[in-house]
């Protein structure tokens, strides 16, 4: 046996050693042909653990190293790097996963130890077949794509642009700003959302290093880290923004209206419109479904009034292609549609509002100029805020949406401030006030006379409905037909309450965007069980994804408040920046390779490669793999009927040896 293999069995404290008899595994490994030394160590990933391995490589001239420890997804890189520093090609390291897939999941020390032995036997046999490989280096395009112009995307784009990186910021809506632009005040400091967001929006819109593409969507992503090729659809807005001066005369004169998306349908906007006054870019687009000219060929009032001649009804969608080195996904969330919980009356009872509707109602720039009133114009004398609408709910979303408790407190405060006479109820399961200054805010609200009911608002009935349904004795005194009755169990009093109110505000759950699945596929980012994008590691790689070079930030990763969202935006920017400043990146050496002397030109592999990395030389009748495009999936290798394609590091012989090892005991 030409090989000198070192085997290292990690205790991982008691994580492994508590369930696997590590000494027995090390003794067993010593008996496998090719193994010259076998040790156990408390923490192989620690500095002394790595030093131990490096010293053995140097002193004993090890040809290969097997580390039986945690998952290779955890520390393969660590041990590869350690080996490389000691002069051993990093691909001569093999990991046996005896923690995540053995000690942590197996009941019984005997069974766990046996399984660990089999995994070590497989790793040793595989290691005997390993070949040294060289990592490939490619240049990184020093630019970034940020998808989504909410506060996460704006923050990421600004951080990157300030560092000198060329940024393309793509936003699906006509303006950047996202959900935050809809808010009036922000908890717990009650500072005005517009006051802190607008300057950032303007900065993003005017930054020399940011190319803003609003009213645009990413259609296709190809390439790989360092050189992503992205196709972006620029939707037709029928206004030439290069000519438009943003004077707003066209909006004023446009005779046609539609429901304002930004105002949650509580107000109208024109067919040619800015979603809101502070929109960036501050130039309108035309809604083709509302514009009379685009629908029926009549009108053209805007054309008449536009001195800049910026209206262009011939505009078509066009697709622009950009090349970027890295991508930040900040596509945000959507609020759950309250109608999915019919018992809460949303959509049926006019007095029931969603949180975003309430935000607009309360906003000084909103449809009522900040006057809190019901749809029929009355000032509510009592308001119930129901927590956990669809969150922490087995029927809808099991997760907590994390911000509802806090903005419910904010609403209660604003209501008390604007309508000091009104009774304000918070129906909650638990109060979750975990952030900086949050608990203090809660305490403050308790002192402001807000009524807290520990019990989930279960049902909301119209006053008239309620009267028709229950015996007269159960009708609260003075209940009017236009009022509402909230049914909830006060779990502290253990008593069912029927609370008459004038207004109900729901706190709908944060949900992944309706097209998160499609977007995830486009960017090769996986999603968790909750449907949000999945980070590479929940603690140690919170903004990275399994697709190298693609980072995630903000609520597309899961519900979060503004401080966390901004922090993630900056975190993603800094990850992207640290990638770009490397100028070059090493990419996997584990690609496929056609062995010319065995290829018959049968063309079986042609058409199987998702990256078009395989080309066919018609003159020589041979296939060839383009190393720069191959990502090493091995599909062509499995399909090649001549076994003429070699999968580096995942070759037949390596895998056969692994199988033999796994089944050797």
């Amino acid at each position, binding site marked *: 046996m030409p090989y000198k293999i070192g085997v290292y069995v990690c205790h991982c404290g008691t994580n492994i050693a508590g369930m696997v008899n590590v000494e027995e595994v090390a003794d067993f490994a010593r008996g496998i042909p090719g193994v010259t030394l076998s040790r156990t160590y408390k923490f192989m990933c620690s500095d002394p653990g790595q030093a131990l391995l490096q010293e053995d490589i140097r002193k004993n001239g090890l040809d290969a190293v097997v580390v039986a420890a945690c998952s290779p997804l955890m520390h393969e890189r660590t041990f590869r790097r350690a080996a490389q520093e000691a002069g051993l090609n990093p691909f001569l390291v093999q990991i046996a996963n005896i923690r995540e897939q053995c000690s942590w999941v197996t009941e019984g020390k005997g069974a766990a130890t046996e399984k660990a032995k089999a995994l070590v036997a497989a790793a040793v046999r595989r290691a005997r077949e390993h070949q040294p490989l060289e990592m490939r280096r490619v240049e990184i395009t020093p630019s970034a794509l940020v998808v989504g112009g909410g506060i996460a995307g704006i923050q990421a784009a600004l951080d990157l642009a300030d560092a000198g990186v060329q940024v393309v910021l793509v936003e699906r809506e006509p303006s950047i700003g996202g959900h935050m632009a809809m808010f009036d005040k922000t908890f717990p400091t009650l500072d005005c959302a517009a006051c802190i967001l607008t300057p950032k929006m303007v900065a993003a819109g005017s930054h020399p290093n940011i190319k803003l593409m609003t009213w645009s969507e990413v259609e296709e992503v190809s390439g790989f880290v360092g050189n992503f090729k992205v196709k972006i659809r620029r939707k037709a807005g029928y206004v030439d923004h290069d000519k438009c001066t943003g004077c707003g005369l066209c909006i004023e004169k446009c005779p046609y209206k539609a429901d304002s998306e930004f105002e949650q349908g509580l107000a109208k906007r024109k067919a040619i419109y800015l979603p809101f006054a502070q929109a960036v870019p501050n130039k309108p687009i035309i809604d083709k479904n509302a514009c009379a000219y685009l629908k029926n060929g009549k009108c053209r009032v805007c054309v008449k009034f536009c001195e800049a001649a910026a209206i262009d009804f011939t505009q078509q969608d066009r697709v622009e292609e950009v090349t970027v080195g890295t991508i930040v996904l900040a596509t945000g969330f959507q609020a759950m549609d309250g109608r999915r919980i019919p018992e809460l009356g949303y959509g049926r009872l006019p007095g029931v509002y969603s949180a975003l509707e309430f935000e607009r109602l309360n906003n000084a720039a909103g449809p009522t100029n900040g006057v809190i009133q019901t749809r029929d114009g009355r000032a509510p004398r009592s308001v119930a805020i129901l927590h956990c609408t669809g969150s922490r709910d087995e029927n809808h979303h099991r997760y907590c949406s994390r911000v509802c408790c806090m903005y419910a407190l904010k609403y209660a405060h604003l209501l008390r401030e604007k309508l000091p006479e009104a009774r304000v109820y918070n129906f909650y399961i638990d109060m979750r006030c975990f952030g900086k200054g949050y608990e203090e805010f809660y305490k403050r609200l308790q002192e402001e006379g807000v009524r807290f009911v520990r019990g989930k608002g279960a049902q909301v009935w119209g006053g008239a409905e309620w009267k028709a349904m229950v015996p007269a004795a159960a009708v609260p005194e003075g209940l009017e037909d236009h009022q509402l009755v909230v049914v909830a169990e006060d779990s502290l009093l253990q008593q069912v309450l029927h609370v008459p109110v004038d207004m109900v505000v729901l706190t709908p759950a944060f949900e992944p965007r309706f097209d998160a699945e499609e977007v995830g596929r486009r960017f090769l980012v996986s999603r968790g069980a909750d449907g949000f994008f999945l980070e590479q590691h929940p603690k140690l790689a919170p903004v990275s994804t399994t697709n190298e070079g693609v980072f995630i930030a903000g609520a597309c990763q899961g519900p979060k408040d503004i401080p966390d969202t901004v922090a993630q935006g900056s975190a993603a920017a800094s990850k992207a920046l640290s990638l770009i400043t490397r100028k070059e990146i090493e990419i996997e050496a584990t690609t496929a390779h056609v*062995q010319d*002397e*065995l*290829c*018959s*030109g*049968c*063309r*079986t592999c*042609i*058409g*199987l490669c998702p990256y078009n990395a395989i080309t066919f030389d018609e003159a020589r*009748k041979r296939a060839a793999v383009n190393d720069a495009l191959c990502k090493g999936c091995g*599909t062509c290798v*499995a*399909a*090649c*009927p*001549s*076994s*003429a394609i070699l999968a580096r590091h995942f070759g*037949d012989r390596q895998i*056969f040896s692994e199988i033999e090892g796994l089944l050797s005991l």
Partner: protein
Amino acid sequence: MSQAKLKVGVYWGASCGGCDVAFLDIHEKILDVIQVAEVKFWPCAMDFKYKDVEGYPDGYLDITLFNGAIRNSENEHVARLLRKKSKLMVAFGACAHMGGIPGLANFWSKKDIFASAYLESPSTENLQKIVPQVETKVPEGTLKIPELYENVRTLAQTIDVDYTVPGCPPNPEQIAIVLGAVASGKLPAKGAVVGASDKAMCEDCPRKKKELKFKKFQRRHLTHPDPEICFMEQGIVCLGAATRAGCGWRCIGSNMPCRGCYGPLPNVTDQGAKILAAIASHIDSEDPEEVERILDGIPDPAGYFYRFGLPLSLLHRRHLGDR
């Protein structure tokens, strides 16, 4: 001619005799062969006795070309004997190489085969239900016949083999080349497959080929394939892409798809699994039910993919379990 002629043995195990005929198919080149070779042992062509062979000193024969699979105790006995008496042992032809057509017996048990051959076939009348026994007592004494084995084996699964010449039968032109190489002493490395290419049939195949995509599979006998176009592109499973070239594309030239008799390519472990992977990868559907419907067009995948190579395949034989 200063050099002594090569002493050549030719033997058949479980085979049809086609390989022996292939020697004659070299036609006038036989004259070249006899310049360098002298046939010492060839029971198919002339009468030899085993005791003649037993009488040879070890290594007496320079080379033995062994065709046929190992199916019974006689095949094995003679294979071992010839191994001892030969300097070089060549597995000659698909049966010795991979089991060949006799290897298809590995789809059945010995019991099944006896039942079919001696009891159940429509042409059999065997009222006493007699099946062959290794030993039969008759008044004159005990009669012995070779024992039929449960499994058909390749030659290399039985004895140490130096070279393999594939094919059913091997292309006659290759025979002279092999003997010539031995006579000249220019021997390839032990274990080599000689008389065949290291590349698949597609290397030699003259048919036009563009893009693979299976919407449906066709069986050869139910269709009239275009002789100019790749069989696979016409939905006919051809083993050419998973089979060594060297036969002179006799089947393909007769508008028959390759059956795989030249066996797997150098790096391939299982010829059937490889053709399976190649064709299935190109089924033109992502709907599991439609995939199943399309696959109904290959009614006997194991028989088709292992027509010549079942005993050499990873699974070697049909697993009978407790049957």
